[in-house]
């Protein structure tokens, strides 16, 4: 039996200002009918370029240096554009990462899907069917991907729908041509945990029902494991390892795969740290560093309706602990974090830091207070001003808050770079020259420049690759014991929360659903919502798949 898709020794270069970049180096991959293949890789591994090449929509200025891609016996490596119309979307189709940007905002859902149907009919050489027939087919597809009320959806625009719904619509579009191969490019990355699990379930059920051949690429090895029976690991443009998913998960051969797997935080493993923690001084004896009492934030929209982002939240963070805040997008966790630091004004409620009520502070006292509490932002790429050098960025808090001399500030900046384990040479660099992990270290250096007592970390690792995330998390824990810091740690990732937090609150729609000792919450969740959250997280976690 010939393979449905056969990629042989495929090498691809992209021409840039600095000369050609070897994006893909000798890729060999075979996909048979009925296979479910996963491709795992971190950013820059070339996985997206690879699958796009399969569809003939690779990056501009790219050049195939060597090798070939053949589909169902036909060589499609350098297929002319007009021949693609018979394959693209019909025999091979694709679903994309961010469902918002991949739907045209100016056309209705129905129009976009029926256009795809019409295009397929035209390519197949048959006449385009009537508008009503296409509408019926569209609604059938929408129904197939589990969307309620297809006839209403037909005349709606993308901006009126949620992320999960949009992703389902993209899947419906991809299924319109009854494709031989469905390529899924990070189909869950932009979605919330619970929605992720639903979309993965949907893909699985479609594979079963329609006997689909699926190639799914993701940076999330857990998501891959839920869908793909076989899997390939990509690193810097090469496939370093491929085989059955179970084998790779259980017995990774390549050093990179081992490192990657070790870095994945596991939701079902209690951290070793907990044991040590218990033997330490009892947490209950320590005083509260930060308290919030009945904190509330109400936004008023232009139309006059109120939206309560955070509703009557009270919490107490003890000195020296890591206080976790977990929730999905829209749960109000970021708003809460910013209110604790007075970056957003609370509508009502009090914030007490080290015994002092800071909710009424303004002007100079507020500025002074900022020394003691610092914030580390989610996205290190935009948290640094691209026009300042790293040295300036780290020195800025000192220039603002102290009257240290330029020379002293420079020395202190070097010392801080040393603390965050970056070479002092970096002070002359600009943010765009650094990697994501390095930038986040710079942000941390900036945050600890004034010797604060509390760090609020807002999803500090979610914009980073998994292996980098592990390093940064380790480093944050080291730093805390070295500098006697207290952390408020915000994340949507339950496994990360479990790994490092002592005490955790679970948020949903601006309210605390459950709070308590982290281990307690994970071992014996009391609330339904917490249970479903942990369940969804577990579904994409590797451990669940290892047990199969």
């Amino acid at each position, binding site marked *: 039996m010939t393979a449905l898709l056969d990629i042989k020794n495929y090498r691809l270069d992209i021409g840039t200002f600095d000369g050609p970049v070897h994006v893909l180096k000798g890729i060999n991959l075979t996909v048979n009918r009925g296979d479910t293949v996963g491709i795992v890789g971190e950013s820059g591994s070339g996985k997206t370029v690879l699958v796009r090449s399969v569809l003939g*929509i690779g990056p501009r200025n790219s050049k195939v240096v060597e090798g070939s891609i053949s589909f169902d016996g036909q060589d499609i490596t350098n297929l002319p554009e007009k021949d693609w119309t018979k394959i693209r979307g019909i025999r091979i189709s694709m679903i994309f990462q961010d469902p918002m940007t991949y739907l045209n905002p100016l056309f209705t859902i129905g129009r976009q899907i029926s256009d795809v149907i019409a295009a397929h009919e035209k390519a197949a050489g048959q006449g385009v069917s009537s508008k009503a027939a296409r509408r019926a087919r569209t609604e059938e597809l929408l129904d197939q991907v589990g969307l309620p009320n297809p006839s209403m959806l037909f005349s709606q625009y993308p*901006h009126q729908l949620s992320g999960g719904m949009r992703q389902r619509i993209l899947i419906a579009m991809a299924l319109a041509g009854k494709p031989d191969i469905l390529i899924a490019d990070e189909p869950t990355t932009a979605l919330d945990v619970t929605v992720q699990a639903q979309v993965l379930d949907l893909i699985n059920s479609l594979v079963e029902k329609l006997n689909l051949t699926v190639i799914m690429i993701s940076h999330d090895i857990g998501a891959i494991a839920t869908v793909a029976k076989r899997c390939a690991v990509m690193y810097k443009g090469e496939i370093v390892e491929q085989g059955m998913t179970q084998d790779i998960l259980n017995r990774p051969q390549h050093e990179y795969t081992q490192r990657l797997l070790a870095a994945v935080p596991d939701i079902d493993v209690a951290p070793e740290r907990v044991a040590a923690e218990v033997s330490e001084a009892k947490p209950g004896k320590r005083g509260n560093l930060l308290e919030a009492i009945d904190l509330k934030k109400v936004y008023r929209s232009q139309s006059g309706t109120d939206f309560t982002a955070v509703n009557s939240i009270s919490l107490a963070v003890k000195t020296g602990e890591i206080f976790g805040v977990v929730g999905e997008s829209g749960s109000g966790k970021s708003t809460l974090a910013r209110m604790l630091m007075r970056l957003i004004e609370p509508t009502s409620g009090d914030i007490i830091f080290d015994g002092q009520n800071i909710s009424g502070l303004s002007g100079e006292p507020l500025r002074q207070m900022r020394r003691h509490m610092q914030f580390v932002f989610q996205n290190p790429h935009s948290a640094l001003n691209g026009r300042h050098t790293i040295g300036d960025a780290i020195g800025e808090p000192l220039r603002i808050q102290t009257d240290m001399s330029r020379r002293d500030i420079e020395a202190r900046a070097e010392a801080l770079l040393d603390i965050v384990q970056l070479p002092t040479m970096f002070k002359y660099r600009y943010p765009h020259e650094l990697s994501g992990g390095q930038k986040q270290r710079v942000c941390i250096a900036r945050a600890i420049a004034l010797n604060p007592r509390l760090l609020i970390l807002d999803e500090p690792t979610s914009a980073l690759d998994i292996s980098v995330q592990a390093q940064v998390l380790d480093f944050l824990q080291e730093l805390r014991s070295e500098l006697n810091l207290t952390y408020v740690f915000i994340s949507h990732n339950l496994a990360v929360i479990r790994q490092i937090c002592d005490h955790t609150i679970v948020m949903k729609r601006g309210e605390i659903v459950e709070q308590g000792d982290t281990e307690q919450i994970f071992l014996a969740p009391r609330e339904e919502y917490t249970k479903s959250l942990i369940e969804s997280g577990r579904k994409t976690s590797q451990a669940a798949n290892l047990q199969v």
Partner: protein
Amino acid sequence: MLTFAFRKLLTLVGTMIGIAALTFLITNVAPGDPARLVAGPNATEDMVATIRTEYGLDKSLPEQFIVYMGELVRGDLGTSIVTTRPVLEEVMRYAPATLELVFVAMFLGIVIGVPLGMLSAVYKDGPLDQVTRIFSISGVAIPAFWFGILLQLVFSVDLEWLPVSGRLPLVTRPPEFVTGLLLVDSLIAGNFATFWTSLQHIILPAIVLSFPCLASILRVNRAEMIEVLQSDYIVAARAHGISSFRIVALYALKNAMLPTLAMIGLRFGWMLGSTVLVETVFDWPGIGLYAVSSALSSDFKPVVGVTLMIGFFFIVANTLVDLAYAWIDPRLRKA
């Protein structure tokens, strides 16, 4: 959609009041005596004093403003000193000529600019793209009045293909007044000879007026098309097998039209402003020429009247653009 349109209408009225205030400010805050300005440079002290009381210029500024606004509401734009006729009447008489010129120029700009921009984007860096690039950048840089003179030199004086100036030859009787636009009125009257003559007259000034406008519509459309063609949803449409022609001509063009529309609105105003130059070069009897000749003879009321009128046309055009925006983009309809 209806409430949206209603809100736009309210903004329109508000802006009109604002422009009225602005013109009032210019007249009264400018150094120099407005009474003297009205009286003209050769007036005696007595005449100035008479005018001061006659025009109510001895009252306080807020009082004067209220009087001024009251006059505007009643459609009183004052009287021209040179012709001693009401400014409103004269502006209304000259406005159709200007509008006709601007409409024809805008038509040329859109009909040529949008497709050329689209083609340059699709065949980016190709020969056509190179040509349109040079064309569009020099189009914005060329002085309209100089370009007009050059065209007259070549097409009217040298080749004698087209008339040098004016709207119609003096001997031709204009068609019966319906819209004031000669091209339309002559067609309504069924007088094709007059239509042909007025078309010959309008070609050169319309080309001069549309040239920079065409250039910037082309550039915006090209830039937007290039950006849209690289966007995720176009990649997705390609991946789903939609034909390239359909993607470019239907999907991408609609998305790229939004910024292009904004540019069209902006350029409409620019054209109205530039009529003062083009009408001067071509002796085109519109409000631009009226404003220039009044300004040169220190006849201030007509200048203000024309400014108000041009502002009014511009706001109406922008409101239409806003409505078109909402019509194209479903995300704006709720707002």
